[in-house]
């Protein structure tokens, strides 16, 4: 980033954009504002519309309806090569007949940058991705992670105000992925441009993003920081997609201020209710649940459900248990290392504070898209 410049990023406004392929709505009225310099992740399962959104912004896909502004300028109908947007693809898309140096110089050559400056900017971009020593190699001589770093250098070398990344780490193994996530975060900080990142990996989204837009079936379910999505999901889909969760379903009764669920003969209550007609479910995060041996005193927890330990996983920092409840559903519990440990088949009681339960409208289609 050159000194003396303000945020070089462009704002993006998606205004109720839709894309239909025949009868299938790939995007169904998506609206989203991305702030200049923001790292926004589009998160969702495959077929949820996140990649279509990226392709629309890049100019690879036409809109059926809606408005798209990049840096305040309406770009609907502007072809991809005139948008000045960097794109990094999952499949790297390096030109196999050009050396690394010529690949990175390609966008500069197209823009008529003179040779001396071209050389300097290519070197700077390659240094930024730590590939400075590889300018003379050919893509086929590089590993996947190295190729993706070159592709990143090529996408930023012409200083685009916006960088789009379509599951760039999807083809790499876990260790490399985690390291490159930190690299991408660093490059975002150094460049100050707007990043839009597509992934189906919620952990990756949490590591990288300023904000996350959760996509499902061509719509945005919720936009927020990782913490907001984890702590205050507004839909069952978001609650289940971000992090581990336990969903309690039962015969619901609401008295205006609290909601009670009757699950296999036991009743749990939460001091909340949901608006509308939909039947409510409770969503609980693993660290909000506790397990005790039956009959053991459980102070401070208002709700108890009997269950059996179905899986016990030692995590080092603690333990994770899967508990089968009386109605057959599974609960996920994370416990600190201190306290009791349990074995497979142990009869336990699942305890939680009603205030920790999120009440959400039931959505059976969430099961279909998540599994």
């Amino acid at each position, binding site marked *: 980033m050159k000194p003396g410049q303000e945020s070089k990023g462009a704002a993006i406004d998606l205004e109720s954009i839709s894309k239909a392929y025949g009868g299938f709505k790939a995007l169904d009225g998506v609206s989203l504002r991305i702030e200049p310099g923001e790292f926004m992740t589009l998160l969702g399962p495959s077929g949820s519309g996140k990649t279509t959104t990226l392709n629309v912004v890049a*100019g690879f896909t036409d809109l059926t309806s809606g408005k798209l502004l990049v840096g305040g300028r309406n770009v609907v109908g502007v072809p991809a*090569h005139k948008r000045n947007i960097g794109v990094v*693809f999952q499949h790297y*898309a390096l030109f196999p007949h050009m050396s690394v140096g010529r690949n990175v110089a*390609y966008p500069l050559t*197209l823009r008529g940058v003179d040779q001396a400056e071209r050389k300097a900017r290519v070197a700077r971009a390659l240094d930024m991705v730590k590939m400075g020593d590889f300018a003379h190699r050919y893509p086929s001589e590089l590993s996947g992670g190295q190729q993706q770093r070159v592709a990143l250098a090529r996408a930023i070398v012409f200083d685009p105000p916006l960088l789009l990344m379509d599951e760039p780490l999807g083809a790499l193994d876990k260790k490399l992925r985690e390291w490159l996530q930190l690299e991408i975060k660093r490059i975002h900080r150094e460049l100050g441009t707007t990043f839009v990142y597509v992934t189906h990996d919620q952990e990756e989204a949490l590591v990288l993003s300023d904000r996350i837009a959760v996509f499902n079936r061509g719509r945005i379910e919720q936009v927020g920081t990782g913490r907001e999505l984890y702590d205050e999901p507004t839909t069952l889909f978001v609650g289940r997609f971000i992090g581990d969760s336990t969903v309690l379903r039962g015969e619901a009764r609401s008295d205006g201020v609290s909601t009670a669920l009757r699950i296999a003969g036991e009743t749990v209550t939460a001091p909340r209710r949901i608006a509308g007609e939909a039947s409510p479910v409770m969503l609980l995060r693993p660290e909000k649940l506790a397990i005790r041996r039956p009959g053991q005193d459980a102070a401070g927890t208002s709700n108890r459900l009997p269950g059996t330990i179905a899986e016990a996983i030692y995590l080092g920092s603690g333990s994770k248990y899967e508990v089968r409840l009386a109605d057959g559903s599974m609960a996920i519990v994370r416990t600190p290392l201190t306290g009791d440990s349990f074995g497979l088949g142990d009869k336990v009681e699942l305890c939680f504070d009603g205030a920790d339960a999120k009440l959400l409208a039931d959505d059976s289609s969430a099961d279909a898209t998540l599994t």
Partner: protein
Amino acid sequence: MSALEPTTPSVAKRGWVSRPFALTLPALILLAAVIGYPLLTIMVRSLSEPQWGVQNYLWFFGAPVNLTVLQRTFVISAWVTVVCVVCAYPYAYLMTAVGPRVRLVLVLCVLIPFWVSGVVRTLSWVILLQDSGVINSLLRAAGFDGIRLIRTQTGVVIGMAQVLLPFMILPLYSVMKGIDLRLMRAAQSLGARPSRAFFTVYLPLSLPGVYAGAIIVFILALGFYITPALLGGPRSTMLSTLVQTQVLSLLQWGRGGAMGVVLLVTTFVLLALAAPVMRSRYREAGRR
């Protein structure tokens, strides 16, 4: 590739030949019998008939008409190659762009004429190209003057290009279908308008197919006999016609053999000159 390589020498070697080499033996024996032996015979006879010496070569290079025909053979073959590249390139590209059903139709359109005998195909060209033929009738009906196509080099080039087109289309298609079209999208995102993306990315990646097809077409064209004989006139005679005259009409096996050897050697020299240009600058393009 490494999976195909023998893992240990003891597996690879059995007796005095390695196993992959042994597998090529049937082909090598066949080639030796039907290509090697006749070729050797021709070389020997070009130096031994009617007596030992280089008199046949001295005759060949001493007669200007032979040199004119040799040069014309290469010029016509070069034109045929150019016409084939120009016609085959968009066609092969279309084959990569359409769905499997349309692709099958396109492949059949290439192959069906290929399965028809060369004589029949060339005679159909006579019907199309002759002065009172289909093309000239249409031209006159449209109010233009007729053009002379039969018994001209143009006619020969048209006929030969049509016969040889499959040899250009098929290698081109096999290279093109390996080109990752997503690279074009990448080029556009980097600022290349579609034509620029084509010339800087797609065309260079497709060149190995162009070279492969061009070599096959050019070499096959050099030895063409039936098409130039039927479509051409005295001013479009190719070397094979002269060879035929020497061998079958005049029974001059030595002179015919010398002509064949000259053609072969000249071809090798040209290929050797072209090789550095055609050598691909990158290893194993980004195919999948």
